[in-house]
């Protein structure tokens, strides 16, 4: 698959795009449209849908050339779109017309996407969600409340998981839809975090209507479709490695270097431990990447999330302990919506507060340890209170 010919083909296409649409001169959307049309958005997608039908590993060839020439990192501009929606739409949208209609403006970032999965009552237990979708002719009528939705206020489309059969066991009664965020039944309210900002939103669905054509996968098959989405969330980590000392640990090391007046041997040892943990995790990702080219991927995706989240917290706790009384100030708690996803990289104290969410969002550390234990080590599952029961009979709260 991963032939030299394919690699040349990708590289040639990328060089042509860069030549004809200099990313330092043309508007971002125009550049990304050219990428899509040249099959460079997701090289493993079919031709015509933003790909070239080649091996996924060659994406790094395209990205290297495009970004070296000054092109944007599109994932950063439309993260749910690129990371989760695109692979799900490609696999489950019902017609090629729909796929193309959704994917191209997604790729250009004209249409931002968001995800309507979690609910106040369904966090770790996502499959227990309560938002209902009831069929009404060629449409579905959706009611419920979603939460932890980033970019909802800027999104044109949303991935929705809703319950279509409350009598079925919880994993069996779910269906997957694409929702128009401009539907009058969709209301978005910013959700303020402890940092003062509103990075996420609550989304209320009040008789929102979704055409049956915008269903992804079969009725009742939503959990399986959602797994496509969630699996792809991780693999979007990318094919290129990171350099030693980059990432969150760089904040601690550079703060340390900038404040020799605060050094103590005990803090130095603590920082070295954190650096070591970051380095061991970085090397583990490198190893996983190497292994992926000769065999299946290892357990490193979940390991990376688990370690990274706890490490982030420890890194910023270290920074705060280093600063002592200097650290217990803030800049501005005034509530504000996030305009861009990297807005949260504010001053140190904001990063510190933000890190508390790392072990909760995208799978709590508790859930990740279950995954490592059960899916990687093959340990037996916990006893279930909800196994096989109709969803509506499972206690909630």
């Amino acid at each position: 698959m991963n032939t030299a010919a394919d690699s040349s083909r990708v590289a040639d296409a990328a060089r042509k795009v860069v030549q004809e649409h200099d990313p330092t001169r043309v508007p971002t959307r125009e550049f990304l449209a050219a990428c899509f049309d040249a099959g460079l958005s997701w090289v493993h997608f079919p031709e015509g849908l933003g790909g070239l039908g080649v091996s996924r590993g060659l994406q790094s060839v395209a990205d290297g050339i495009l970004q070296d020439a000054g092109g944007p990192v599109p994932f950063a501009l439309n993260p749910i779109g690129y990371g989760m929606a695109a692979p799900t739409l490609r696999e489950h949208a019902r017609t090629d017309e729909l796929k193309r209609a959704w994917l191209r403006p997604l790729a250009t970032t004209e249409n931002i996407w968001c995800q309507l999965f979690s609910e106040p009552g369904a966090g770790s237990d996502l499959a227990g969600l309560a938002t209902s979708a009831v069929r009404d002719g060629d449409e579905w009528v959706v009611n419920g409340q979603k939460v932890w939705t980033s970019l909802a206020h800027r999104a044109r489309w949303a991935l929705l998981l809703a319950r279509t059969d409350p009598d079925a066991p919880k994993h069996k009664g779910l269906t997957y839809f694409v929702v128009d965020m401009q539907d009058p039944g969709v209301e978005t309210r910013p959700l303020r975090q402890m940092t003062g900002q509103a990075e996420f939103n609550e989304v209320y669905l009040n008789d929102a209507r979704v055409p049956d054509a915008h269903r992804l996968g079969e009725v009742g098959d939503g959990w399986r479709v959602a797994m496509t989405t969630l699996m792809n969330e991780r693999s979007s980590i990318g094919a290129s490695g990171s350099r030693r000392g980059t990432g969150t640990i760089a904040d601690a090391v550079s703060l340390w270097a900038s404040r020799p007046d605060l050094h103590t041997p005990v803090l130095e040892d603590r920082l070295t431990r954190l650096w070591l943990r970051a380095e061991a995790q970085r090397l583990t990702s490198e190893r996983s990447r190497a292994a992926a080219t000769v065999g299946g991927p290892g357990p490193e995706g979940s390991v990376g999330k688990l370690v990274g989240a706890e490490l982030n917290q420890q890194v910023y706790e270290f920074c705060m302990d280093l600063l002592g009384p200097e650290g217990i100030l803030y800049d501005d708690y005034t509530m504000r919506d996030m305009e861009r996803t990297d807005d949260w990289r504010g001053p140190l104290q904001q990063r510190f507060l933000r890190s508390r969410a790392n072990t909760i969002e995208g799978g709590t550390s508790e859930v990740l340890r279950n995954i490592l234990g059960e899916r990687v080590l093959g340990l037996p599952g916990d006893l279930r209170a909800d196994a096989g029961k109709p969803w509506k009979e499972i206690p909630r709260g």
Partner: protein
Amino acid sequence: MADQQDARPFVFTEEQRELRTAVRKFAADNADEQAVRRLMESDPGFDTKAWTRLGSELGVLGLSVPEEQGGVGGTLVDQAVAVEELGATLYPGPVFGTVALAIPALVAASDGPVRSELLGPLVEGTRTAAVAVADRAGAFDPAAVTVQAARAGDDWTLSGTVERVVDAAAADDLLVAATGPDGVALFAVDATAGGVERTPLTTLDLTRRQATLRFADAPARLLAGPDEAERVIGHALVVGSVLLAVEQVGASQHLLDLTVEYAKGRLQFGRPIGSFQAVKHRLADMLVDLEHARSAAYHAVWALGDGSDDPALAASIAQATCSEAFARIAADTIQLHGGIGFTWEYQAQLYYKRAITDAALLGSAEQHRARIARLVLDTASGEAAPAVATG
């Protein structure tokens, strides 16, 4: 609450239990979560009328002030009971500046007109105070004083800057350590006087504010001269450390209760999350941390009263234990609540920010451990060291 020693360590008297109930009720009535949020976004950050009632009606701001100084002549245990309950609700008000530091400093100072004039209104809650003293790891360090005192006849003026003084923005009285011709002394400055510039700061913990103070020939009155300033300030810092520890215990207990209730009621996978070992065992560890923090804080409270332990050691044990316990319990509270725990609307974040703030005040846990090492390890004997097998 007559002037007395508390007879048995760790055993509260009937009066103290009643005091606890009264303060708890007052805090519930005047500082429920909505009130705390309203006050923390208002000026001066607390309800001055309620503060006065705490002092005048409940009489809990200067519980360990001797009767001859106008106090009720209780013990530090009495004061600790009140502070613990105020801590449990994050009671907004200058507990740290006025109750934990300024009043103990005034009590320790020699009698005199300045002390008499200041102490009464602070105990009554009609005025509040902040203490602008450079502490290094919770101990007084005369070399770190950044304010100069100049004498002109009987009058003093102060010049210099003290950064990040807790409760200073709204304080009426400032107790300031300054270096004069004969050494470091402690002065009282009227916060509204000319030459005093206060810059309020945006604090991580909005319920515990700070300000930077700049003095430019600000008029000051001598409270404790170089002969006793170090002792007076040292006493205040030790008492302040211990009351801060007790406050940390109050807040930690609140969080443990809150999280246990949540874990009982929150269902995921058709069962209470508290039935999962991952949640249950974390709560068990929180309980252990809390029990240890409570024991360490109470020990210090009693030891300062009955002299059964070196005050500096007892205070460092309390601070090293309680700072870490409160921060860990607050972080775990957020984790066990999941997403909701991270929101602005939920109370967990208020406590977390208080925990991080308290941990940085009056010395870090690491600094207190270093002091303990000096006091305990450096004086230990190696005589009874176990034999080491040598093969």
